[in-house]
């Protein structure tokens, strides 16, 4: 069971970590969904036609990152609103992938490839024998382990390096960076591009796991990742936890479908709804915490 949870949580984790960088830089990145979709499509298209997973991954990450870089630069350079630009990316992703699918594969629905390379599962030697942690380290794709690694790496980057400091400063007071001679726009573009990279990975993991590309393969994961950032208190380890919890909830929902035959559309509602409740609980607790702090003065 833990195994499935880990599989489910990986896209959330990847997208969430990337989004954390942009969030730190003061940009609410609602384009995560679109970027993930672009990544999923590109990765599937290249991997399916070339038969090579690595190439597919590179394509997915590269194109997604390029899209992120473009929308960031265009928005910041033209002084368009970055938020709306992200909405535009989402829309473009939906439309663009359809058009590309039509042009390249003659369909706008499911793209099945004659022979899609299978995703190898790896087990980490020592860690897969530890009883409790076994589920984390046994029989997973490389994507999962990359996601795991990214957690401490992001934490370190954000806390201990100048780059992390710049990102935080960009979010808190970008004018301060400007007066110190740091190009704060470039920091933001970089942060958004990072989210493009991780979303590309997330998307690739989705389509590789499926062995095909279906429209709306991301079905809201980008948005959930966003929420995971907030619920995870904007910290990498927090995001890890929330993604874990969320994946568990989704697994529960899927089992419920299997057992009680709950209809699929209701199922789609479930993750959103439970995140909504989670948000309420979190805010209430947070407010309570603040009030307690004040009382203790």
């Amino acid at each position, binding site marked *: 069971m833990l195994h499935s949870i880990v599989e489910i949580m990986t896209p959330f984790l990847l997208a969430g970590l990337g989004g954390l960088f942009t969030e730190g830089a003061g940009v609410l990145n609602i384009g995560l969904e679109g970027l993930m979709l672009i990544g999923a499509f590109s990765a599937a298209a290249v991997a399916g036609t070339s038969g090579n997973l690595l190439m597919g991954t590179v394509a997915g990450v590269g194109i997604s990152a390029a899209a992120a870089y473009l929308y960031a630069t265009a928005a910041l350079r033209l002084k*368009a*609103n970055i938020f709306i630009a992200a909405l535009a990316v989402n829309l473009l992703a939906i439309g663009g992938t359809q058009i590309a699918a039509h042009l390249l594969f003659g369909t706008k629905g499911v793209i099945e490839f004659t022979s899609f390379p299978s995703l190898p599962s790896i087990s980490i030697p020592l860690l897969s024998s530890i009883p409790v942690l076994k589920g984390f380290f046994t029989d997973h794709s490389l994507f999962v382990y990359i996601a795991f690694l990214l957690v401490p790496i992001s934490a370190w980057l954000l806390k201990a390096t100048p780059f992390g400091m710049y990102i935080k400063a960009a979010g808190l007071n970008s004018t301060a960076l400007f007066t110190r001679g740091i190009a704060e726009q470039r920091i933001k573009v970089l942060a958004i591009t990072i989210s493009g990279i991780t979303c590309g990975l997330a998307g690739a993991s989705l389509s590789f796991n499926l062995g095909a590309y279906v429209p709306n393969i991301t079905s809201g994961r980008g948005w959930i990742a966003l929420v995971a950032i*907030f619920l995870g208190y904007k910290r990498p380890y927090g995001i890890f936890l929330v993604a874990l919890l969320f994946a568990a909830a989704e697994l529960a929902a899927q089992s419920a479908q299997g057992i009680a035959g709950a209809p699929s559309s209701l199922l789609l509602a479930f993750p959103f*709804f439970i995140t909504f409740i989670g948000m*309420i609980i979190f805010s209430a607790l947070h407010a309570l915490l603040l009030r307690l702090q004040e009382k203790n003065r």
Partner: protein
Amino acid sequence: MHDTRPASTFLSIGVAIAAAILAMIVALPLLSNSPVQTLYSFLMGPFRNWFYMGNFLNRVGLYIIAGLAMIIAFQGGMFNLGGEGQVYAGALSTTMFLLSVPKLIGPVGVIGAVCVAAGTGALIAGLSGLLKMKWNTDELISSFLLSSSLVYTIDYLVSGPLRNSESFLLSSSEIASKFRLPQLLPPSHLNLSLLAALLLIGLGYKYLFHTSSGYELRMTGLNREFARYGGIPIQRYYFIPMALSGGLYGIAGCLYVLGTSFATMQGSTSGMGWNGIAIALIARIHPLLLLPAAIIFTYLEFGAENAMIYADFSFEFGAVLQAIVLFLVTARFSGFRVLRKKGI
């Protein structure tokens, strides 16, 4: 509140439209076998005959209401991202209400339905506002989450428990004909709701600029500290903009059912929430610019759909167009306070 340099306003809108049309011109040879004909149906979409014109104007009316919903939210400094769910819920509540009161006289039923739909939308959006007020929950995310849950839930309801067994469509039962709005230009869908939309523009403008509450709402949206300093009761202006916004979205859904679809069909109102945002932005979040903004946007969307139908495939190209328009329209103006708070 809107940009005091009209030249750049119209310039960026003009650029957006030009780019959209250019995109179509570029894409068509790739996508269509008869690009000229397709382009023709794109550009001349609504003008080809009264049927198209009627449907065009009908949609303009509905989009005006959606745009107004977002304008009020934005002016109040709130970001209502739950439009999709609020419209859909408005449509469903209208349908369910009218189906459950078959004995009511026509006009009374209509008024009742409008109230029910507005109330539904207001409650949903208002909840996000309340959460923000009490616990500083980000209303953007909470409204989006709630709305997405609702959309899928209503999808399920309409294709399941509430489904009309006699129809092939995934739809609820239809409302009685006495509740339906008079059609102005049959066989098109154009109905009285267009007039309602125009009326609402006037009401919206009056509220925002000619009432105390509107002044309070706008000042709070622009600078919370300023409003607090002046003695404006800012706490209630987390809830009020959201509730008004949700209520308007609900009305849009209601009028859609009353005048166009006469039932709640799965996915029928899809897109109205997002488009409301786009139109509000094109209108520089000023009510008096809603009519031209809605016309421009609907023209593009309409054209894209017609072109696609003619060229015999139904794409999400409309989505691409919308993206281009959205993006370019926001280019070059340094953003409204509320958008700035959320992003850059």
